[in-house]
């Protein structure tokens, strides 16, 4: 999907870069913040997307509440976000983390502007309030979840802000559409949010994580997969991905299917991590 340079709205030949920063404690944004500043100073359009699952847990615990995780029959573990948890989610992500990241980027010279997925209906899709869970070996339907999957991105809002020189800093929640037409703030995975944004903008998606990329064998540093080109390669990648990396690979697939130019999964904890990723340090998926 890359190869031939196209002309973008800014008159340049490079697509916007969508950078996903981790919520995991292992992912230090300091290097990434300076790197975003370099890219922007060099005229590149950048959108930053961040998660913050551990911060949600920390704040729940500070408030004396217990984070609730459920296992689905398929073996996926995920947060169950009831109404109270959603409130803490809003406090942790668009509240604390987004504000701090915007301030950090502004101190690096970036005209950063924070938005959650509810703002302007930026990240929208159907709300899912029921989940299938496995509890004590029993399959159950559990209701009251606040989650959803993005099926629409207001790319016009982002393009407008980018054209005006702002660097959007995005975070969950997304805008969940109920069957009765009402909307609610709901949880969504930040990797997939970044993928949806990269797809909508035709951008390059850089997913920064706490390992160097996707490995054929995670215990063998020599088996880092450098480039994934075409369906056969991608099947190998899907087979190789384990644990949390499965989600990164699924996000990569969604980004490319949505129109992203390329996806990079790479290490956050190196010097200039975004430029390193774009230069091929981690796993590149086309």
């Amino acid at each position, binding site marked *: 999907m890359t190869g031939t340079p196209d002309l973008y709205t800014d008159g340049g030949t490079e697509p916007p870069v969508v950078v996903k920063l981790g919520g995991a404690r292992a992912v230090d944004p300091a290097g990434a913040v300076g790197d975003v500043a370099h890219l922007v100073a060099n005229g590149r359009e950048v959108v930053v997307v961040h998660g913050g699952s551990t911060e949600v847990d920390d704040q729940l615990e500070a408030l004396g509440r217990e984070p609730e995780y459920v296992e689905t029959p398929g073996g996926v573990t995920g947060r169950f976000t009831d109404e109270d948890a959603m409130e803490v989610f809003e406090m942790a992500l668009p509240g604390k983390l987004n504000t701090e990241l915007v301030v950090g980027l502004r101190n690096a010279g970036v005209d950063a502007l924070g938005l959650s997925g509810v703002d302007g209906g930026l990240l929208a899709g159907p709300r899912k309030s029921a989940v299938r869970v496995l509890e004590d070996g029993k399959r159950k*339907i559990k209701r009251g979840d606040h989650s959803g999957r993005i099926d629409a991105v207001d790319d016009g809002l982002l393009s407008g802000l980018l054209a005006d020189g702002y660097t959007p800093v995005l975070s*969950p929640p997304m805008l969940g559409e109920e069957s009765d037409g009402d909307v609610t703030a709901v949880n969504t995975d930040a990797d997939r949010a970044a993928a949806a944004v990269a797809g909508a903008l035709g951008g390059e998606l850089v997913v920064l994580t706490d390992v160097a990329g996707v490995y054929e064998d995670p215990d063998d540093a020599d088996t880092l997969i450098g480039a994934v080109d075409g369906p056969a390669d991608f099947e190998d990648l899907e087979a190789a991905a384990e644990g949390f990396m499965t989600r990164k690979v699924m996000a990569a697939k969604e980004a490319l299917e949505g129109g992203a130019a390329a996806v990079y999964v790479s290490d956050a904890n190196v010097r200039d991590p975004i430029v390193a990723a774009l230069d091929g340090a981690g796993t590149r998926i086309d």
Partner: protein
Amino acid sequence: MTEAECVECGSAVTLHDDLEIGEIVDCGTCGAELEVVDVSPPVLERAPELEEDWGE
């Protein structure tokens, strides 16, 4: 042991005693997945298909 009617094929579905609301049981006759929406007396509905999804 109690029984309830499968909303898909009409067969009797045998239910264990410590049935919980929200639990999913399979119809032994047609294989439909049924959600327990009430327990006394037990009422079954077709269990919704739900994608595996997750958030932060």
